């Protein structure tokens, strides 16, 4: 995927990817941290709520205790303490800003009711205290006083039974007071029954006394006592009523409210505990999840990063390694090294191009080396040829000179000896030698012209050329009873006509010169075609040539037979002409079996002929 990037960018991509992955991991950590933090603050909140709930339930117990103290003892300080606690709880709840909480609202509501009820209890209690401490006591003492006055008035007149009766009533009065006070002290309902029974008994006794006394003076005190007793009864009942009322308030209403509050705060505490447990479990689970996620993602990222690095480094190192091998091979000078294909335009692409250039340079160098070797070899051969040429030429040119000088010396000696006729006879030899030297010089000139003069090449139809050749030599052939036969059609060659004719002339000349066959000499000319060459042959039925001379005969001035005419230059010229045409000449022959001279011309395309 990043194979299309430059190396630099590939490395950048790798680092950026690793950076992004790290950033991703950091983000995951931060999110997790915030989530955990939320949980924690929620936990702290719940904990404080739970703490508050506990504190409320404790305070409510205290309120209840104070309320009971107040109810039983009637101490104002207990009531004040209770109100103080109430104020504190309200303030705490408000301070904690927990009004929105359902439980706290309910607690407040119940607490308010509780306190309201307590206020009623306080009223009832105050009233009861007033009734008990003031009215009941005063009524009791009034009734007692009046009855004591009655006793006083009647003490003189009354008999013992009456007196006893009076004492009994008096003690009942005291008993009533005792029961009543005991009730208000201990709030035992039996005392009410006892008090009421005593009151009833006293009333009955008093009413009986009243009937006895009638309209007597003393009866007024009895009436007064009855009156006070009735009032006492009323006030006592009211006090009982009120006591029962606030006891109901305290024992039923307030207890219920307190219970509600404690229940709710406990429930809230439990719920908060549950919530907290949940949060804790959540947080733990979350932490575990996060740890798992972090570990998994860490491992995944590590694998990804490793894969990524491997991918990148492979994408870089593989082609570089391949190129290195290539360059090592190239450095050894090979131009056949396979250069790995690499089509991306990056640094390695540039290296690959360099390798290709390197390879081409190697090829060029090798070609140059080959050319240079070829040239050196050519030069060496040329030098050898030149040396051979100079050697041959100097020898062959010196030879007539030696002859001339030798005969001139002989002529001088003959002349000195007076043998003039003989001396003159030797002059022809000198002339011949000089003529021969002239001939050699001409031949050499001709040889030197091959490749220099008559170099223009044209398309030559060999059929026409050989027909003309045969006509030109018709007389010569018939006079020497020579048959010239064409074995085949001939191709069209791209060559220099006069040079080709020169070669044909030389070959025909040699055949004529050496012809020895008693059955008549025949020369066959034919053509055959190879893949890249045209082959022309001249076949004679002459004496043939030993294999040892098959190459030598093409050398300059090399002659198989010195008795024959010629300078030994014909075949050397033929070879040079063939070389000029990028062809060659050779002979196939066995002694006494004729000789076949082959001419090879390379085929040339129509285009390159131009």
């Amino acid at each position, binding site marked *: 995927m990043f194979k299309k990037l430059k190396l630099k960018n590939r490395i950048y991509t790798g680092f950026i990817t690793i950076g992004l992955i790290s950033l991703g991991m950091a983000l995951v950590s931060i999110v997790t941290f915030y989530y955990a933090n939320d949980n924690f603050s929620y936990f702290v909140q719940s904990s404080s709520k739970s703490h508050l709930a506990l504190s409320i339930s404790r305070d409510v117990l205290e309120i209840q205790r104070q309320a009971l103290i107040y109810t039983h003892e009637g101490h104002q300080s207990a009531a004040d303490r209770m109100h103080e606690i109430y104020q504190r709880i309200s303030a705490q709840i408000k301070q904690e800003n927990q009004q929105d909480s359902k439980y706290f609202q309910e607690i407040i509501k119940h607490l308010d009711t509780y306190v309201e009820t307590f206020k009623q209890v306080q009223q009832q209690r105050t009233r009861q205290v007033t009734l008990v401490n003031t009215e009941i006591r005063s009524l009791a003492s009034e009734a007692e006083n009046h009855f004591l006055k009655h006793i006083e008035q009647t003490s003189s007149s009354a008999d013992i039974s009456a007196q006893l009766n009076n004492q009994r009533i008096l003690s009942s009065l005291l008993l009533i007071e005792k029961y009543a006070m005991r009730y208000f002290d201990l709030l035992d309902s039996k005392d009410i029954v006892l008090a009421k029974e005593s009151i009833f008994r006293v009333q009955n006794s008093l009413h009986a006394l009243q009937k006895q006394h009638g309209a007597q003076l003393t009866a007024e005190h009895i009436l007064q006592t009855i009156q006070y007793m009735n009032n006492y009864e009323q006030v006592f009942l009211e006090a009982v009523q009120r006591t029962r009322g606030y006891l109901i308030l305290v024992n039923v209403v307030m207890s219920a409210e307190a219970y509600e509050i404690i229940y709710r705060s406990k429930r809230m505490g439990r719920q908060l505990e549950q919530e907290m447990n949940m949060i804790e479990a959540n947080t733990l689970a979350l932490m575990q999840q996060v740890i798992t996620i972090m570990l998994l993602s860490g491992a995944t990222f590590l694998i990804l990063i490793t894969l990524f690095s491997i991918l990148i480094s492979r994408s870089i190192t593989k082609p570089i390694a391949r190129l290195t091998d290539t360059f090592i091979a190239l450095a050894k000078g090979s131009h056949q090294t396979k250069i790995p294909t690499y089509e991306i335009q990056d640094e390695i692409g540039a290296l690959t191009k360099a390798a290709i250039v390197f390879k081409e340079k190697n090829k060029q160098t090798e070609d140059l080396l080959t050319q240079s070797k070829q040239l050196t070899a050519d030069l060496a051969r040329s030098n050898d040829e030149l040396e051979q040429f100079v*050697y041959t030429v*100097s*020898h062959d040119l*010196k*030879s007539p*000179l*030696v*002859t001339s*000088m*030798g*005969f*001139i*010396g*002989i002529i*001088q*000696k003959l002349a000195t000896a007076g043998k003039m006729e003989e001396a003159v006879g030797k002059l022809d*030899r000198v002339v*011949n*030698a000089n003529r021969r030297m002239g001939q050699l010089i001409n031949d050499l000139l001709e040889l030197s012209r091959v490749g220099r003069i008559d170099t223009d090449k044209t398309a030559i139809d060999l059929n026409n050329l050989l027909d003309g050749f045969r006509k030109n030599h018709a007389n010569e052939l018939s006079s020497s009873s020579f048959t010239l036969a064409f074995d085949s059609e001939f191709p069209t060659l791209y060559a220099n006509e006069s040079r080709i004719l020169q070669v044909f002339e030389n070959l025909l000349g040699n055949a004529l010169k050496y012809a020895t066959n008693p059955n008549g000499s025949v020369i066959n000319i034919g053509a055959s075609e190879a893949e890249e060459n045209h082959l022309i042959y001249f076949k004679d039925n002459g004496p043939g040539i030993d294999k040892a001379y098959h190459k030598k005969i093409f050398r300059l001035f090399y*002659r*198989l*037979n*010195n008795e024959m005419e010629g300078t030994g230059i014909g075949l050397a010229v033929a070879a040079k002409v063939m070389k000029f045409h990028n062809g060659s000449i050779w002979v196939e022959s066995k002694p006494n079996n004729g000789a076949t001279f082959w001419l090879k011309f390379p085929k040339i395309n129509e285009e390159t002929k131009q």
Partner: protein
Amino acid sequence: MSSKKETNNRTILLIEDNEDHAEITRFYVNEYAADIKVVWLNDGKAAMDHILEINENREQSYPWLILLDIKLPKYNGHEVLSRLKSNQTLREIPVVMFTTSTSNQDIDAALKGGANSYIQKPIEPDGYAFTIAKIIDYWSLNQHGIIVDNLNKHA
């Protein structure tokens, strides 16, 4: 001349492809030492055939001296020299290379091949007579004449 009385059956084998040169050499040899017979052969192979025939049949005398040209048809001078000098008997016959070649290559090859002398063909009108005389004089004084005589006597 002393040469005339020392031997009466001396033959020079002239191996020379140039007819003119052969005639000139023969002329000067005859002029200087009329008793020396010149046998001329114009190619290396014919010369070797001739000399091997002498060695085989002993019907003719061994040549007293061989004048050997280098550029020859069939066997050239170096080949002839090599054949002569590799033969136990024929190697005793002195061989004088007598040639127009002045190339060091030829001189080296001839001397290494066992040629007894290397003489270039003169290109002065009076040079030929002088050269031939010096060759004959030199080989007349040399022990080789006696050795060749001995070869002949054993025949």
